[in-house]
């Protein structure tokens, strides 16, 4: 099966129903994407598939064969992703950091679809869980990114 991840083609020998997250982490060694709950509830495993945020722990790998997958490793190669990471650094969002790769993917997906989201749109889209409680910092960084776009 051929997967396109971060603009590169990978050949993988896995069962069709293997979760994409296992392939990314275990078979391909890209461990920036995290395993959280395994039930699509927390968002730590978020990646982009054709620009949309997807939870890799519940995505059968066969369902994304041939589609463009982006993981945290290559997020700065994306213009929007680069701005998000810069804002995250600027506002020092991360504490333990475990959920942050997923948070950055969710933020990037939101800004790709809605360049200048309102507060309500940010609340509605940024639903990944964070045990450190960095929600306020995330929100501030997102507000800042939206403001930059409006300016």
């Amino acid at each position, binding site marked *: 099966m051929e997967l396109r991840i971060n603009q590169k083609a990978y050949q993988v020998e896995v069962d069709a129903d293997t979760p994409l997250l296992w392939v990314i982490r275990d078979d391909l060694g890209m461990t920036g994407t995290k395993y959280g709950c395994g039930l699509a509830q927390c968002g730590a495993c978020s990646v982009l598939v054709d620009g949309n945020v997807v939870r890799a722990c519940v995505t*059968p790998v066969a*369902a994304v064969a041939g589609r463009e997958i982006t993981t945290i490793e290559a997020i700065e190669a994306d213009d929007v992703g680069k701005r998000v990471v810069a804002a995250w650094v600027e506002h020092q969002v991360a504490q333990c950091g475990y959920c942050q790769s997923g948070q950055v993917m969710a933020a990037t997906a939101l800004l790709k679809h809605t360049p200048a989201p309102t507060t309500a749109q940010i609340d509605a889209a940024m*639903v990944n869980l964070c045990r450190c409680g960095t929600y306020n910092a995330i929100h501030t960084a997102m507000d800042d990114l939206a403001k930059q776009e409006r300016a």
Partner: protein
Amino acid sequence: MNTRRFARTAGWLALPCLIAAGLLAWYVTREPASPFEQEQATTFDPALVSRGEYVARLGDCVACHSLAGKAPFAGGLEMATPLGTIHATNITPDPGVGIGAYSLADFDRAVRQGVAPGGRRLYPAMPYPSYVKLSDDDVRALYAFFMKGVQPASEPNIPSAIPWPLNMRWPIALWNGVFAPTATYAAKPGQDALWNRGAYIVQGPGHCGSCHTPRGLAFNEKALDETGTPFLAGALLDGWYAPSLRQDQNTGLGRWSEPQIVQFLKTGRNPHAVVYGSMTEAFNNSTQFMADDDLAAIARYLKSLPGDPQRDGAPWQYQAAATDTRPGAHLYATRCASCHGLDGKGQPDWMPPLAGATSALAKEAASAINITLNGSQRIVAAGVPDAYRMPAFREQLSDQEIAQVLTYMRSTWGNTGGAVDARDVNKLRGHTDPASSSPIILHMR
């Protein structure tokens, strides 16, 4: 004068009454005839034993007669009846508490007629109104399996919790007289062998109707074969809605092809649905072990049962979701869409679509509520546990939120199941809470 006349009249009346009482006593305690009366099974051919094991798979005996972590077929499953709770019994060949002392004829009377040795009637939680259709050959094989293929276990039987006088068993004989058929399956001459094999499995050992056929006031299945339109027309049971298996476009198998039915029963999933609820144990223990020919026969038979457009409504058609500001829409996007898709189409065959799903089209919302509260059980297909499972949202979403998200799900993408009431969610939440004082316990199946 009057007294003498009264005494004479009473005397004349007493005689027929006594005769009637005698007949009744005989009728309700008699041991019905068995074709195996003269047959003494002493040796068991290994081929017959393994054939019997297959019949036990078809009949899913293990679903009720075993408990997780206990010896197979040692009984114990708690079941609700209208009168009180009963427990499935030990059917291992233990001669004391099990059925080790049963002759083939005794075994036959229990399985096909619901009568234990001595004339004691079984409760129809044992699906003998379906098992009566079993062929003599299959009963013989099943007996061989239970005598030689099952390890004896001395697990004692749990007495039923039905109070006197309701615990008297003899009235069941009258129930049987009215509701339980007495004939084994007879092939329909107008139908081919495949159809007849399917009808045999569905009506007989498979006892599909125990869950999928609605029941009447006396807890009787309203139809036991295709001659009655309620047969397999869908029923509410154990907090789940067992959908129609007829050709209903929305709530039945109308949109399923025969190969898709086979795929569902063999692998637990197809492009329309993934097994969940009570079907999980039927799949894990029974249908996946059926031979491909038998599954094809079941599919052929089920596809021959006509739907009822009046009950089922206009056929479902997919409609893209419009912009929706209901709270359920946002809940859906954040809680459900990563698996079931923003478009409701799921990721077939792993995550089922909700667009066009039975649980989104049936009036009864029980299945949708139940699986949202409690998630799905583990599906084990060919020894491999499933990679994806519906999580339980019991602790994460309130009754109100579950009602909102299900209302959205059941009224989007062309779905017509309609609104879900938070009170119904609350009720089912209570009944399915293991710590509750009124938990759902399993019914007849």
